[in-house]
């Protein structure tokens, strides 16, 4: 099978979340795990790895931030347009392994995308998990993604939301996600952490978790790298001897801490 050839599927929903971030719902029935990614194509423009932002049977949600040429083209697609998909690739969050624990979700900015799949998974398998706590950080109130969903989740789970910088209307918490994490004063008993966000955020989240008493192997991180193939050929995502596309993008922190440039 030629892995480089994308297949084309229809966009059935499009929703703008912020001025540069859109949700695209693609109608396709492919089994996938939260934390995996797809190589997403717009012919004539190119291809980019986009992490799957859902856990559903009949569609995949892609949360796309308009930052480069491919993501820009994706954000310009309309409902009914077709998008090229190949995958899923890589290892997602080990949901089976995490069962029986309290799941701590920590995400910043677009790092929200892969963990949304984890939340959907846990909602569908709630009897298998002790519980879930979420910590979300965004730059400003205007950057908050999936506002309605976060609102809904907060009725069922403990949701902590913060913005780096508030505005006149914002009545919630202001400060970095590490601040609300530290304030939670939670211990590490029966907990597994699922985290995704910019590298600098991850660095300080880990420091905070260590302060709270978490062990390396209780933490799962999702790494970001450029990928041209998704199948361990192009070498773009090789770091510290691991291919983020195939060995990751989700790594246990006891392994991820050695993946340095």
């Amino acid at each position: 099978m030629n892995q480089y050839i994308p297949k084309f599927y229809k966009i059935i929903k499009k929703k703008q979340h912020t001025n540069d971030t859109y949700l695209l719902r693609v109608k396709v029935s492919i089994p996938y795990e939260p934390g995996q990614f797809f190589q997403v194509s717009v012919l004539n423009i190119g291809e980019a790895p986009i992490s799957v932002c859902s856990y559903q049977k009949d569609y995949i949600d892609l949360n796309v931030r308009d930052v480069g040429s491919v993501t820009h083209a994706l954000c310009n697609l309309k409902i009914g347009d077709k998008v090229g998909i190949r995958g899923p690739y890589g290892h997602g969050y080990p949901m089976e392994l995490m069962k029986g624990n309290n799941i701590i979700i920590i995400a910043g900015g677009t790092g929200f995308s892969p963990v949304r799949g984890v939340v959907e998974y846990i909602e569908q398998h709630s009897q298998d998990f002790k519980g879930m706590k979420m910590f979300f950080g965004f730059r400003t109130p205007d950057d908050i993604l999936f506002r309605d969903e976060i609102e809904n989740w907060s009725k069922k789970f403990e949701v902590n939301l913060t913005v780096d910088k508030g505005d006149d209307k914002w009545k919630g918490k202001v400060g970095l996600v590490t601040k609300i994490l530290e304030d939670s004063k939670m211990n590490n008993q029966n907990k597994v952490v699922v985290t995704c966000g910019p590298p600098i955020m991850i660095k300080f989240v880990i420091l905070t978790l260590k302060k709270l008493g978490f062990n390396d192997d209780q933490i799962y991180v999702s790494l970001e790298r450029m990928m041209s193939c998704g199948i361990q050929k192009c070498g773009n995502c090789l770091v510290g001897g691991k291919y983020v596309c195939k060995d990751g993008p989700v790594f246990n922190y006891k392994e991820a801490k050695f993946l340095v440039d």
Partner: protein
Amino acid sequence: MKKLLKKDGLRQFFNGLTRKYAIIAPVKKKDIHVFEKVNSFDEIDLNFINTAYPVKSFFLPVYQELFSFNGGKINVKTDNSKKVVFGIRPCDVNALLVIDRIFLDEYEDPYYKARRNNTIIIALSCTEAGENCFCESFGTNKLTKGFDLLLTKTKQGYVVETGSEKGKQLVNSKLFSNTNIEPKIELKFKKHITENDLNKLKQNFENPIWEEEAKKCLSCTACTSTCPTCPCFFVRDETNLDLKSGKRYRYWASCQLKNFSKVAGDAFFRKERSKRLKHRIFHQLVYYKDKFNSQMCVGCGRCFTNCPTKINMVEILGKIK
């Protein structure tokens, strides 16, 4: 059973191949040898230590179309032409085996696979070690697989070993006679990498030497381009003027370029040349081995032979205390 091909039989054997296959063989260009498509025995020159560039580009072209498209229609072309690579050195055959482990894994690369399957490898043993050769350190001066024929020059002619069914068919001619000659190859190497060097390297990810050496680096990518095992690439789409049709292709990339570690938002994981130089050497000597249990570097020395500022992997390892 080994075969013997008389020296004057080589021309006839070679010209026989040209009737069936496209031949890629060493050609002399001023003071270097390079692999080129040739039409006759007269074009080639076997009086070389190794070619300046490896055969990599015949299996992973600098620019390779993955598919063309028109609207939503995708069209794939694979190169199924029958070729012979003639006169390739053992280190470079071993280099193809290195790339095989990456490109013929569970996600088989169909473009590479087609070229590998359709290419006959006729290797030529070394008679002399080059100034910068250190293949002996990794055992890649020897060939146990990966070839169809292995020719070794002796006083009596070329002793020929067969490494495959295809190879056996090729020597099934009057030009080849049975022989008991065991060719003796004694090569004297001036450069070496030891197990101890590799262990020291592993422990010196943090070392001022990387920054020191990187001061000389021009990020020209001569090292990765002329390396027989560096296979990294980027992918791009190219649009035709109708704005509908076009093609997706891959082209050689290099970890020595800053752009190679770029991610969204113009962030770079390996902005500093020292990190890029270190990444290349660690990939070649540490990472690949950890994954595939076999050395990536085959010791051809091209990365420093072709480096305009002579950044030398073997010397760097020697300097790490």
